[in-house]
Protein backbone atom coordinates (compact mmCIF):
# COMPACT_ATOMS: atom_id res chain seq x y z
CA UNK A 1 0.00 0.00 0.00
CA UNK A 2 2.97 2.28 0.67
CA UNK A 3 4.90 2.27 -2.61
CA UNK A 4 8.69 2.66 -2.44
CA UNK A 5 11.04 3.78 -5.17
CA UNK A 6 14.66 4.84 -5.72
CA UNK A 7 15.38 6.93 -8.79
CA UNK A 8 18.03 9.13 -10.41
CA UNK A 9 15.37 11.37 -11.98
CA UNK A 10 13.92 14.47 -10.27
CA UNK A 11 11.05 13.73 -7.88
CA UNK A 12 7.56 14.84 -8.87
CA UNK A 13 6.10 15.46 -5.40
CA UNK A 14 2.81 16.89 -6.64
CA UNK A 15 2.06 13.80 -8.74
CA UNK A 16 2.92 11.40 -5.91
CA UNK A 17 0.78 13.33 -3.41
CA UNK A 18 -2.25 13.69 -5.66
CA UNK A 19 -2.12 9.99 -6.61
CA UNK A 20 -2.99 9.11 -3.00
CA UNK A 21 -6.47 10.62 -3.26
CA UNK A 22 -7.25 10.24 -6.96
CA UNK A 23 -10.68 8.65 -7.37
CA UNK A 24 -11.06 7.99 -3.63
CA UNK A 25 -13.50 9.34 -1.08
CA UNK A 26 -12.25 7.48 2.02
CA UNK A 27 -9.09 9.53 2.58
CA UNK A 28 -9.41 12.21 5.25
CA UNK A 29 -5.80 13.33 5.54
CA UNK A 30 -2.62 13.40 3.48
CA UNK A 31 0.69 14.41 5.05
CA UNK A 32 3.74 14.88 2.88
CA UNK A 33 7.38 15.56 3.65
CA UNK A 34 9.81 16.66 0.98
CA UNK A 35 13.52 17.10 1.74
CA UNK A 36 15.57 19.50 -0.39
CA UNK A 37 19.24 20.23 -1.04
CA UNK A 38 20.19 23.46 0.78
CA UNK A 39 22.96 25.78 -0.47
CA UNK A 40 24.52 25.98 3.02
CA UNK A 41 28.10 27.22 3.28
CA UNK A 42 28.64 27.43 -0.45
CA UNK A 43 27.37 23.97 -1.26
CA UNK A 44 27.56 23.35 -5.03
CA UNK A 45 25.99 19.90 -5.25
CA UNK A 46 24.99 16.87 -3.21
CA UNK A 47 25.58 13.29 -4.32
CA UNK A 48 23.61 10.39 -2.90
CA UNK A 49 25.25 6.96 -3.00
CA UNK A 50 23.30 3.87 -2.03
CA UNK A 51 23.58 0.10 -1.66
CA UNK A 52 21.21 -1.06 -4.39
CA UNK A 53 20.90 -4.69 -3.29
CA UNK A 54 19.85 -3.57 0.20
CA UNK A 55 17.91 -0.35 -0.53
CA UNK A 56 14.82 -2.01 -1.91
CA UNK A 57 14.64 -4.41 1.02
CA UNK A 58 15.21 -1.62 3.56
CA UNK A 59 12.51 0.59 2.06
CA UNK A 60 10.05 -2.29 1.85
CA UNK A 61 10.73 -3.08 5.52
CA UNK A 62 10.17 0.55 6.49
CA UNK A 63 6.91 0.67 4.54
CA UNK A 64 5.64 -2.60 6.03
CA UNK A 65 6.46 -1.38 9.54
CA UNK A 66 4.51 1.86 8.99
CA UNK A 67 1.54 -0.07 7.57
CA UNK A 68 1.56 -2.36 10.61
CA UNK A 69 1.59 0.57 13.03
CA UNK A 70 -0.95 2.94 11.45
CA UNK A 71 -4.17 2.50 9.44
CA UNK A 72 -2.90 4.13 6.27
CA UNK A 73 -4.92 4.04 3.06
CA UNK A 74 -1.84 4.58 0.89
CA UNK A 75 1.57 6.12 0.75
CA UNK A 76 4.64 6.82 -1.30
CA UNK A 77 8.35 6.91 -0.46
CA UNK A 78 10.63 8.18 -3.23
CA UNK A 79 14.36 8.62 -2.65
CA UNK A 80 16.61 10.17 -5.23
CA UNK A 81 20.20 9.02 -5.84
CA UNK A 82 23.10 10.51 -7.81
CA UNK A 83 24.14 14.15 -8.09
CA UNK A 84 21.66 16.94 -7.38
CA UNK A 85 21.73 20.72 -7.06
CA UNK A 86 20.55 23.14 -4.35
CA UNK A 87 16.78 23.47 -4.44
CA UNK A 88 16.21 19.96 -5.80
CA UNK A 89 14.22 17.36 -3.85
CA UNK A 90 16.17 14.48 -2.25
CA UNK A 91 13.31 12.54 -0.74
CA UNK A 92 9.53 12.49 -0.61
CA UNK A 93 7.36 10.74 1.94
CA UNK A 94 3.59 11.03 1.59
CA UNK A 95 0.99 9.16 3.64
CA UNK A 96 -2.80 9.06 3.35
CA UNK A 97 -5.16 7.99 6.11
CA UNK A 98 -8.73 8.47 7.26
CA UNK A 99 -7.50 10.66 10.14
CA UNK A 100 -4.78 13.24 10.60
CA UNK A 101 -2.88 11.83 13.58
CA UNK A 102 -2.10 8.57 11.74
CA UNK A 103 -0.97 10.45 8.63
CA UNK A 104 1.30 12.81 10.60
CA UNK A 105 2.80 10.04 12.73
CA UNK A 106 3.36 7.61 9.87
CA UNK A 107 5.08 10.29 7.76
CA UNK A 108 7.36 11.37 10.64
CA UNK A 109 8.13 7.71 11.42
CA UNK A 110 9.04 6.95 7.80
CA UNK A 111 11.41 9.93 7.69
CA UNK A 112 13.02 9.09 11.03
CA UNK A 113 13.56 5.52 9.94
CA UNK A 114 14.86 6.53 6.48
CA UNK A 115 17.40 8.79 8.15
CA UNK A 116 18.77 6.01 10.36
CA UNK A 117 18.06 2.66 8.64
CA UNK A 118 18.15 3.11 4.88
CA UNK A 119 21.51 2.57 3.14
CA UNK A 120 22.08 6.03 1.62
CA UNK A 121 25.14 8.24 2.03
CA UNK A 122 25.44 11.92 1.16
CA UNK A 123 28.57 13.67 -0.03
CA UNK A 124 28.74 17.46 -0.31
CA UNK A 125 30.56 19.23 -3.11
CA UNK A 126 32.01 22.69 -2.40
CA UNK A 127 34.74 24.83 -3.97
CA UNK A 128 37.21 23.33 -1.47
CA UNK A 129 36.41 19.72 -2.31
CA UNK A 130 33.98 16.92 -1.56
CA UNK A 131 33.22 15.66 1.95
CA UNK A 132 31.00 12.92 3.33
CA UNK A 133 28.13 14.02 5.55
CA UNK A 134 28.38 12.76 9.12
CA UNK A 135 25.38 11.06 10.74
CA UNK A 136 23.58 13.18 13.31
CA UNK A 137 22.89 12.01 16.85
CA UNK A 138 19.61 13.93 16.65
CA UNK A 139 18.45 11.53 13.93
CA UNK A 140 19.02 8.57 16.25
CA UNK A 141 17.14 10.42 18.98
CA UNK A 142 14.24 11.08 16.62
CA UNK A 143 14.15 7.42 15.55
CA UNK A 144 14.18 6.33 19.21
CA UNK A 145 10.76 8.01 19.66
CA UNK A 146 9.27 5.03 17.85
CA UNK A 147 11.19 2.56 20.01
CA UNK A 148 13.18 1.42 17.03
CA UNK A 149 16.41 -0.37 17.73
CA UNK A 150 19.44 1.45 16.35
CA UNK A 151 20.92 0.25 13.06
CA UNK A 152 23.72 -1.46 14.97
CA UNK A 153 25.24 -1.61 18.42
CA UNK A 154 28.64 -3.07 19.19
Amino acid at each position, binding site marked *: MIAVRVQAEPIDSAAAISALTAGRDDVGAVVSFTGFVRADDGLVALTLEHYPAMTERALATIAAEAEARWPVTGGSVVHRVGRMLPGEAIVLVAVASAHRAAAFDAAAFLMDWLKTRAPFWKSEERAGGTTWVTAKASDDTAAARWELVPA*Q*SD
Partner: protein
Amino acid sequence: MIELVYFAWVRERIGVDGEILPLPPGAATVGDLLDWLATRSPGHAAALSERAAIRVAVDQSFVCFDAPVTDGVEVAIFPPVTGG
Protein backbone atom coordinates in the same frame (compact mmCIF):
# COMPACT_ATOMS: atom_id res chain seq x y z
CA MET B 1 34.20 -17.33 -0.13
CA ILE B 2 32.49 -14.18 1.08
CA GLU B 3 31.59 -11.14 -0.96
CA LEU B 4 32.63 -7.85 0.62
CA VAL B 5 31.07 -4.57 -0.55
CA TYR B 6 32.09 -1.09 0.59
CA PHE B 7 30.30 2.25 0.54
CA ALA B 8 31.00 5.98 1.03
CA TRP B 9 34.35 6.73 2.70
CA VAL B 10 34.94 3.08 3.58
CA ARG B 11 34.96 2.38 -0.17
CA GLU B 12 37.19 5.40 -0.85
CA ARG B 13 39.77 4.49 1.79
CA ILE B 14 39.96 0.83 0.80
CA GLY B 15 40.12 1.90 -2.84
CA VAL B 16 37.76 -0.69 -4.34
CA ASP B 17 33.97 -1.13 -4.48
CA GLY B 18 34.29 -4.62 -3.10
CA GLU B 19 36.24 -7.86 -3.14
CA ILE B 20 35.64 -11.60 -3.01
CA LEU B 21 37.78 -13.34 -0.42
CA PRO B 22 37.96 -16.68 1.34
CA LEU B 23 36.51 -16.56 4.85
CA PRO B 24 39.64 -16.20 7.02
CA PRO B 25 40.40 -19.18 9.28
CA GLY B 26 39.18 -18.61 12.82
CA ALA B 27 36.90 -15.70 11.88
CA ALA B 28 33.54 -16.54 13.46
CA THR B 29 32.00 -13.11 13.85
CA VAL B 30 31.71 -9.80 12.00
CA GLY B 31 34.18 -8.34 14.52
CA ASP B 32 36.73 -11.07 13.76
CA LEU B 33 36.33 -10.36 10.05
CA LEU B 34 36.88 -6.60 10.54
CA ASP B 35 40.02 -7.27 12.63
CA TRP B 36 41.45 -9.47 9.89
CA LEU B 37 40.46 -7.09 7.05
CA ALA B 38 42.23 -4.19 8.79
CA THR B 39 45.54 -6.06 8.40
CA ARG B 40 45.26 -6.43 4.63
CA SER B 41 46.52 -2.96 3.57
CA PRO B 42 47.06 0.56 4.90
CA GLY B 43 43.81 1.50 3.11
CA HIS B 44 41.86 -1.24 4.89
CA ALA B 45 43.41 -0.15 8.18
CA ALA B 46 42.47 3.50 7.60
CA ALA B 47 38.92 2.54 6.68
CA LEU B 48 38.33 0.23 9.63
CA SER B 49 40.37 1.81 12.42
CA GLU B 50 37.56 3.78 14.04
CA ARG B 51 35.21 0.93 14.80
CA ALA B 52 32.45 3.16 16.29
CA ALA B 53 32.05 4.79 12.87
CA ILE B 54 31.50 1.47 11.07
CA ARG B 55 28.20 -0.26 10.33
CA VAL B 56 27.82 -3.72 8.82
CA ALA B 57 25.08 -5.54 6.96
CA VAL B 58 25.17 -9.29 6.30
CA ASP B 59 23.06 -10.38 3.35
CA GLN B 60 21.49 -6.89 3.29
CA SER B 61 20.45 -6.80 6.94
CA PHE B 62 22.08 -4.65 9.63
CA VAL B 63 23.96 -6.75 12.16
CA CYS B 64 26.02 -6.25 15.32
CA PHE B 65 29.75 -6.93 15.44
CA ASP B 66 29.15 -10.15 17.36
CA ALA B 67 26.91 -11.55 14.62
CA PRO B 68 28.21 -14.75 13.00
CA VAL B 69 29.83 -14.75 9.56
CA THR B 70 29.63 -17.90 7.49
CA ASP B 71 30.85 -18.94 4.08
CA GLY B 72 28.83 -17.61 1.13
CA VAL B 73 27.40 -14.45 2.67
CA GLU B 74 27.57 -10.87 1.40
CA VAL B 75 29.11 -8.52 3.95
CA ALA B 76 28.62 -4.78 3.42
CA ILE B 77 30.78 -2.33 5.36
CA PHE B 78 29.97 1.38 5.48
CA PRO B 79 29.66 4.47 7.70
CA PRO B 80 26.40 5.31 9.51
CA VAL B 81 23.75 6.12 6.92
CA THR B 82 22.95 9.75 6.05
CA GLY B 83 20.10 9.60 3.54
CA GLY B 84 16.66 11.15 3.72
